[in-house]
């Protein structure tokens, strides 16, 4: 009989238990949690008056702390109970939660948790081929000295790969280190190799990609969801806003997931698109809107730029891709591939459905549309310009922006917390070794693809923080081969800094590279690391207070409530220490609160997240910005923040007609305050599409990848958490039964996916492969249809040791080098029977209420 861990009872916090507030450590929705902590041996009573939860037991709807919300931690010899309860009074989640957030107590630093032994607890340096514990001073002195050596001729020898989201204090200090102290342009985010926007087509059109309020999903009449699935990935947003509203959903996805069936069961539309053809569909919808005269001419006249010279002056990206309304409409109408009947052939979607979608989006009978456009990784990690620009164009064409129930927004992955601490743009303009030449611009410097610079030798010291690029990036099997070569030279033989540096200098002189990995758990990159720096898991409440925001720009205080591994350090502190060793004299913050107060006072206007008002409020009240944020508690403030009548006020949505929410700016993020249509031309990617398309004759399939509801990112916590990982003890490959039968594959078989020729735009194509358990659903059980169509397989994107990125093509947009992670192909073969045959549940995961 399957059992749950720790299921027999959950203690009740006494009325005087310590309470703190923080948001979930995981997804973009940013649900609020209350943390209760009290000494083991004490317990509250079942009456509300006798417990800190204010709940009468047995607890009713939404009031119950489940067993997985409880854990015992130990600090200084004292054991404490900790309960993570979804905050019943928080605006975002009203006590709701997903399986991810609802189990986060199970990955606190506690000897009762399965991940305890795996946490990185002390600095290490690879000596004689093995990672060996050393003291902090030795480790950080080596990091500083090797950085100096790598940048002795030019700053580009240092490369940093860091998360974009892990709280403003950390990202500010880290980006200050690379852009201000070191001056290198070689920065890559955790999920892409360059300092690029994720939604270039949206951002360069003057729209912001987090511009709506969650309530807009509840108020919309039509909700377009492209390349994402909020039920699967943004659970509480789906439950509290999408499901609570009454919008007709238009779901665009190659797979029939839960939300696709939910859309169809609730009078919406499911457009099951052929992989990688979104720009054609979105342009076809736009063309039909224009052909029918359903577009919002008044909005376009007032708010979309029609002066070619002014568009060119906005910047090189706009000069290359920006269009006047006339040019845009001409592009749609002059290219017959965008006529619905022709688009149907490319996209696989009936012309009737294209017209139906156009009408639901444009709502020709309404003066003001109530259409909300949402998108996520299926668009972003594909043709990143075309896919995102086509969505932005539709929002502008129909004037669906800046009103309740309208707008365009990403659905999102992690929460957001990027705060630039140095002059990134200037450094890139001066030092980048990558440039772009297009139809209208020539040789403009662009953010460099750092993965290519790891491969080609430009980066000699690679500092990786809080991610695992040797599994997270594109074409990773080939990348690991290259990194193995570049780190296999001269090795330190003692822990003496002089000896270590002699070895690293020799390695670098021979074309090799030194890797520093700053992390909370070991992963694939740690296997190649020379220096390992153990970090505090501040996202889990360790060590210090921090701040970040969610998918509606809701900025909140995450109060620390526990210490974590005693000898680990928070990332901001590690950056500051390295910075000081490299000569910085302004990285001497005493605490994360001190850093945040400095940031709010001196750097409070990081586009478009104005927080200057926090400092004004602090000065007014004689407190600090940190205290202002702490007092805003679970609901925080939606940025930009402003001070009104002495109180902090937020901004529910951006791009409202009066533009008042943007201090000093107009309605859109352009110099003119107007938005810009973007060129979306299938010809720009059609050749690559042909090259990436699987060869059916050779038995190839599209092998796309994405999320599964209960698994978070690279599973850094979930791979170690029995309750979560038992659902998928190995990676899975969803296969249509006909594709499975053709290959003699049954549910539960172990299969291998091989790509013999992983596309690489810079170098030779190489082989890549991974294994997974075949997830094949019986047709009889697939009561609302098979999730994957014939010809397409789907796998979790980042299952440790069975990683789809090993076959992901190295195609990056030449203007904005983001990879098309979704567009992989491979042939699938049966290896044998896995141990999952009788253990894994192979029921459909897409059955929605009817």
């Amino acid at each position, binding site marked *: 009989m399957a059992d749950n861990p720790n299921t*027999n009872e959950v203690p009740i916090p006494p009325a005087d238990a310590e309470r703190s507030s923080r948001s979930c450590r995981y997804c973009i929705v940013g649900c609020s949690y209350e943390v209760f902590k009290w000494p083991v041996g004490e317990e509250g009573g079942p009456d509300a008056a006798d417990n800190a939860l204010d709940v009468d037991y047995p607890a009713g709807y939404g009031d*119950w702390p489940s067993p997985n919300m409880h854990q015992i931690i130990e600090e200084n010899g004292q054991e404490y109970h900790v309960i993570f309860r979804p905050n019943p009074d928080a605006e975002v989640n009203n006590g709701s939660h997903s399986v991810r957030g609802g189990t986060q107590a199970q990955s606190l630093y506690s000897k009762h948790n399965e991940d305890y032994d795996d946490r990185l607890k002390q600095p290490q340096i690879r000596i004689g081929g093995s990672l060996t514990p050393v003291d902090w001073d030795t480790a950080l002195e080596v990091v500083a000295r090797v950085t100096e050596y790598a940048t002795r001729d030019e700053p580009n020898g240092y490369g940093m790969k860091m998360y974009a989201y892990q709280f403003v204090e950390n990202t500010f200090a880290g980006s200050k280190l690379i852009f201000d102290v070191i001056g290198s342009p070689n920065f890559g985010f955790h999920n892409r190799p360059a300092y690029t926007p994720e939604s270039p087509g949206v951002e360069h059109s003057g729209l912001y990609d987090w511009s709506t309020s969650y309530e807009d999903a509840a108020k919309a009449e039509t909700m377009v969801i492209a390349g994402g699935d909020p039920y699967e990935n943004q659970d509480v947003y789906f439950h509290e806003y999408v499901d*609570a509203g009454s919008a007709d959903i238009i779901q665009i996805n190659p797979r029939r997931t839960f939300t696709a069936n939910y859309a169809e069961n609730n009078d919406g539309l499911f457009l099951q698109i052929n992989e990688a053809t979104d720009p054609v569909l979105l342009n076809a919808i736009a063309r039909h809107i224009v052909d029918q005269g359903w577009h919002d001419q008044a909005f376009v006249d007032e708010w979309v730029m029609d002066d070619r010279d002014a568009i060119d002056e906005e910047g090189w990206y706009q000069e290359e891709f920006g269009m006047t309304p006339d040019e845009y409409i001409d592009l749609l109408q002059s290219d017959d591939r965008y006529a619905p009947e022709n688009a149907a052939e490319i996209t696989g979607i009936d012309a009737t459905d294209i017209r139906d979608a156009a009408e639901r989006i444009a709502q020709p009978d309404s003066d003001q549309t109530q259409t909300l456009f949402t998108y996520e990784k299926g668009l972003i990690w594909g043709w990143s310009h075309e896919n995102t620009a086509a969505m932005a164009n539709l929002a502008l064409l129909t004037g669906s922006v800046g009103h309740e129930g309208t707008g365009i927004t990403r659905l999102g992955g992690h929460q957001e917390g990027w705060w630039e601490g140095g002059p990134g743009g200037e450094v890139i303009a001066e030092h980048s070794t990558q440039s772009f030449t297009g139809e209208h611009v020539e040789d403009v410097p662009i953010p460099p693809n750092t993965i290519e610079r790891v491969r080609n030798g430009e980066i000699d010291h690679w500092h990786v923080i809080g991610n695992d690029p040797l599994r997270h990036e594109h074409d990773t099997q080939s990348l690991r081969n290259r990194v193995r070569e570049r780190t296999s030279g001269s090795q330190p033989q003692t822990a003496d800094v002089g000896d270590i540096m002699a070895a690293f200098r020799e390695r670098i002189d021979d074309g090799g590279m030194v890797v520093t990995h700053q992390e909370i758990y070991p992963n694939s990159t740690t296997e190649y690391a020379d220096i390992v720096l153990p970090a505090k898991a501040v996202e889990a409440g360790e060590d210090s207070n921090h701040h970040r925001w969610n998918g509606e720009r809701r900025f909140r205080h995450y109060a620390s409530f526990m210490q974590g591994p005693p000898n680990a350090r928070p990332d901001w502190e590690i950056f500051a220490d390295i910075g000081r060793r490299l000569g910085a004299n302004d990285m001497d913050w005493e605490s994360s609160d001190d850093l945040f107060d400095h940031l709010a006072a001196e750097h409070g206007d990081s586009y478009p997240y104005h927080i200057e008002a926090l400092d004004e409020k602090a000065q007014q009240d004689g407190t600090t910005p940190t205290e202002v944020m702490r007092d805003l508690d679970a609901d925080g403030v939606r940025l930009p923040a402003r001070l009104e009548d002495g109180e902090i006020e937020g901004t529910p949505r951006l791009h409202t007609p009066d533009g008042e929410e943007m201090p000093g700016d107009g309605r859109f993020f352009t110099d003119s305050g107007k938005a810009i249509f973007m060129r979306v031309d299938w010809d720009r990617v059609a050749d690559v599409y042909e090259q990436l398309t699987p060869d059916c004759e050779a038995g190839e399939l599209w092998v796309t990848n994405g999320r599964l509801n209960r698994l978070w990112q690279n599973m850094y916590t979930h791979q170690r958490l029995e309750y979560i990982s038992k659902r998928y003890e190995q990676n899975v490959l969803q296969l249509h039964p006909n594709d499975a039968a053709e290959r003699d594959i049954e549910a539960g078989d172990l299969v291998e996916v091989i790509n013999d020729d992983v596309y690489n735009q810079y170098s030779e194509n190489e082989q890549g492969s991974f294994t997974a358990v075949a997830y094949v659903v019986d047709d009889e059980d697939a009561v609302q249809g098979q999730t994957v169509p014939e010809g397409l397989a789907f796998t979790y994107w980042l299952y440790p040791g069975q990683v789809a990125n090993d076959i992901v093509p190295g195609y990056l947009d030449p203007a904005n080098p983001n990879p098309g992670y979704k567009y992989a192909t491979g042939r699938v073969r049966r290896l044998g029977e896995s141990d999952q045959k009788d253990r894994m549940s192979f029921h459909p995961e897409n059955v929605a209420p009817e």
Partner: protein
Amino acid sequence: MKNDDGSITRRRLLGAVGTAGATSVAGCGFQAPTAENSGPAESPSERVGRIERYPRIRVASVDELSVGDTVEFEYPLDGSGTFLTRLSEAANGGVGPGDGIVAFSNLCTHMGCAVSGNVESDRGVAGPCPCHYTTFDLAKGGLVIMGPATTDLPQVRLDVEDGDVFATGMAGLVHGRRNNLADGEPVEEEGE
């Protein structure tokens, strides 16, 4: 399905909320355990002194259960809704013909809505839950197939004696409870 203003969704949600909050005040017949009926290791910990053991009650007769039949009953406390069903496949913890008879708590472990109206025994699942659509695999110990619940659906331990199915305990904490046997009155054992 939703009304244009979404109101059905809310009503559906509220209507489906379970009864965990209805504390029983009946003062009947729970008696001290006998040695052979003492709870196995999985039963609630001795740390909570007032807990004794799970009651043993007859729930159904094997002969009267066809595949797809569902029987609702209360266990282990008055007001704790549970359901028993017969699957067409062998199940973890299943008893009877083909090990297909199983029983579970009726309360979804996400936020406590009732799932017994959404049992599909022929497919071996309970769900989607009417509130946030978690679906549980009844052949795999109440494992969450998909959805936001944070623990498996608590499974009732069954055994069969002389053609009758008895409930004897539970694996997993029931929604709303700090302990499956606290804050309520145990159901009455037969003959006691």
